[in-house]
């Protein structure tokens, strides 16, 4: 047993990491699907979309051959509409409430149609939006993830000069660094960022981290307003003995490495345990498998009913051949020569409901042991609490507190996205970015 890279031939890796949501092969396919939509009034799909994309309209526009209009309809509500068409958990959002479900028929493939229009727009570099003349106002947006990009784009359209600060080498945030490569390819992420910023008025400054190269005090002095879309990023620790053994990694870093390196260079164990059952856990488990791990076991402290991922995401792991152990929680990691050897787990049972409304897991006293050589911790991310406290921003456990106007306790400083909500979907962050931009415009009297 060992943690090694280059387990599979290059061609296999390329195939395993290629796009799992293939686009329509032909325009006719999109037309047929678009025409299947009955164009509901006050449509449930739109209601479930956090950015409120007018879905019946954009589908009607595909059906009428007005693809440019369709793309504009999508982007005017969600500037990351292209990326969202690949990463949104649509089975619990728009597609999950499509009225065809009530007829026990296949819902309209909204995401695929959305991808169809937005990809055409990106590939053809359609200029769908024009900036207003410059207002002379300057706004700093910190974090070039979905919230920051959406905020920057919305501000730029209204004639604001935006400087977008990003601590990483590339913009895109979690889209670029935190999602399985087979959902969005690195090339796509770059194209999407380029397309969004091509509207102009957005100066992207990479490798500028808040608290290091830039400070909030400095930004407040130089800019008329600040938007913080810094996300979350620190992996929650397991808090059990043996966590420092070689072979214990956090899912965020694991996925980050996949996104920033060649697949053949990513090392993975023979027997991998993934702790957690959220979307990131699924992405870590499936990618371990696709990198060539022999056994991947996902461990979750509650039962299947309480799992945070959707059934569609769960199926990805299932069909990749991962195993699942429900009602189990890591107790101790045992090693040999400083390397992971065994994972001891508590068997759990479900007690009464907790604050989330789900039944809480309770330790039964029984344990079991798994032979593993790699453990990927995907139990969630923590906000940048220290950074936020150091900047004197009011927060709750590191989550930034804002008022209805998306403003923090510091005048002129606004916030949104994961940094505020603790970690939701890309589409929620986009909506926060839009809302933040609206609040900033109102604050600036524009």
């Amino acid at each position, binding site marked *: 047993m060992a943690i090694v890279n280059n387990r599979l031939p290059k061609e296999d890796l390329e195939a395993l990491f290629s796009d799992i949501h293939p686009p329509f092969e032909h325009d006719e396919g999109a*037309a*047929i699907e*678009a*025409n299947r939509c*009955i*164009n*509901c*009034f*006050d*449509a*449930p799909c739109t*209601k*479930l979309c956090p950015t409120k994309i007018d879905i019946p309209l954009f589908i009607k526009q595909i*059906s009428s051959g007005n693809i440019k209009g369709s793309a504009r309809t999508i982007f005017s509500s969600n500037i990351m509409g292209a990326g969202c068409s690949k990463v949104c958990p649509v089975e619990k959002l728009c597609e999950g*409430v499509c*009225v*065809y479900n*009530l*007829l026990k028929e296949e819902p309209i493939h909204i995401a695929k149609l959305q991808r169809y229009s937005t990809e055409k727009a990106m590939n053809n570099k359609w200029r769908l939006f024009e900036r207003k003349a410059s207002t002379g106002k300057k706004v700093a947006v910190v974090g070039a993830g979905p919230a920051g990009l959406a905020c920057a784009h919305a501000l730029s359209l209204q004639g604001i000069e935006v400087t977008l600060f990003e601590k990483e080498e590339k913009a895109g945030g979690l889209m670029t660094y935190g999602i399985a490569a087979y959902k969005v390819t690195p090339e796509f992420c770059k194209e999407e960022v380029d397309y969004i910023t091509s509207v102009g008025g957005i100066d992207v400054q990479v490798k500028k981290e808040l608290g290091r190269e830039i400070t909030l005090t400095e930004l407040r002095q130089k800019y008329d307003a600040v938007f913080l879309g810094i996300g979350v990023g620190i992996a929650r620790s397991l808090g059990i003995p043996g966590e420092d053994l070689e072979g214990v990694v956090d899912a965020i870093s694991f996925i980050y490495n996949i996104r920033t390196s060649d697949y053949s260079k990513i090392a993975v164990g023979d027997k991998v345990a993934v702790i957690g059952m959220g979307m990131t856990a699924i992405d870590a488990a499936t990618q371990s498998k696709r990198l060539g791990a022999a056994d991947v076991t996902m461990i979750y402290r509650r039962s299947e009913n309480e799992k945070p991922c959707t059934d569609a995401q769960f199926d990805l792991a299932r069909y990749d051949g991962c195993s699942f152990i429900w009602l189990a929680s890591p107790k101790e990691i045992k090693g040999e020569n400083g390397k992971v050897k065994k994972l001891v787990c508590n068997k759990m049972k479900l007690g009464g409901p907790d604050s989330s409304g789900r039944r809480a897991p309770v330790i039964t006293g029984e344990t079991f042991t798994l032979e593993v050589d790699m453990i990927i911790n995907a139990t969630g991310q923590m906000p940048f609490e220290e950074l936020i406290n150091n900047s004197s921003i009011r927060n709750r456990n590191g989550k930034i507190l804002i008022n209805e106007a998306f403003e923090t306790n510091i005048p002129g400083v606004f916030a949104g996205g994961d940094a505020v909500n603790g970690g939701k979907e890309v589409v929620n962050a986009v909506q926060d970015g839009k809302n933040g931009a609206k609040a900033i415009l109102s604050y600036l009297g524009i």
Partner: protein
Amino acid sequence: MANLQSSFLGIKSPNPFWLASGPPTDKKINVLRAFEAGWGGVVWKTLGTQIKNVSSRYSSLNFNGKKIAGFNNIELISDRPLELNLQEIREVMKLFPDRAMVISLMADNDRKSWHELVKKAQDTGAHGLELNFGCPHGMVERGMGATVGQDPEIAKMIVEWVMEVAEIPVITKLTPNVHSVVPVGKACIEAGSNGLSLINTIQSVTGIDLDTLIPNPNVGGKSSFGGYCGPAVKPIALKFITTLAQDEATCRTPISGIGGIATWKDAVEFILLGAGNLQVCTAVMLNGFRIIRDLCDGMNNWMDEKGYQTINDFIGLSVPKLTRWEELDINYHIVAQINQEKCIHCGLCYIACEDTSHQSISKEDGYPYNTYNIKEIECVGCNLCKIVCPVDGCITMIEQRKGDEYLNWKEFQKRGLPLNDH
């Protein structure tokens, strides 16, 4: 099993489905394939003075992703040598003696030409002749086709010429490019035509290429009005044949129904409104001769279910059920009812009623599904909600009479009854 055998003007065929005069019937190879597939008869593509066709002849109308709701052509009568056509007709009849062979004719506008053409056609042994007074393009500019069918006097004159020499049944095919087919129909019957067939195609422009700005079909940069046919024209055809069935002077003349017939249901409807048999063209052009199987099978099953032994049992049964508007019962009142169990909350009924009808549906906002209910007091029973509803049987119209007695508009006025106040 019902009996689908048909005798139209004494012309026998194993089923009532003939191929209408057109591209599918313009030569032996097609007609043999049609008969092998099971078609009851053909009306051979119109013979006359040989013409030359253009290339690029058809275009179509698509609707909401469904291809070919309507079809259009600018093809003229047969462009093959007359003698070759006549020879092939003889050969086909020898191979399929049980099928109906009718020849469509369009001679130049003089008595001698018509006489010669009729004689040549009936010399083949064909069972009947159809006079093409309907073609709306190309031949019109030469004073033929629809030009004849639009003028009762000219039509009458030509039918008279034909009847002077005709020894087999004569059907006159009428154009719908008129406000009413009754005057021409009457004139043709008076002149001796044994039967009528309708409708021929409707003059049309199906669309324009928005890149080149050239209407369809594009013939070297220009187009021309074509003849419209296919599913979209069926309602117009049904109306025209009904007007003949309703008129005292034309109601006893057998009618061959044509216009957008694509399914057995369409065919039954034509018969219910007075057609004695049916002619099909566009549907086979789009799907091939094989569609005859379901045309016959579907009609057969329907007849069995309804207890009809032969076609004659239901010819014209729906004609008395079409009346003048002022005969309709004003006391008849229906209101929509939504079956909440079946409703999928699409809101299509609501927005249709709210924007364009009588604001008779209430919306109760829900997440993600709204609830829609009928405001019975406001509902005029227009059927719009039921028509737009995507679920069969979800919206039904419930009878709620305004009064027990039959009351028509004339009587309503005579009694000075009150009109709506809002």
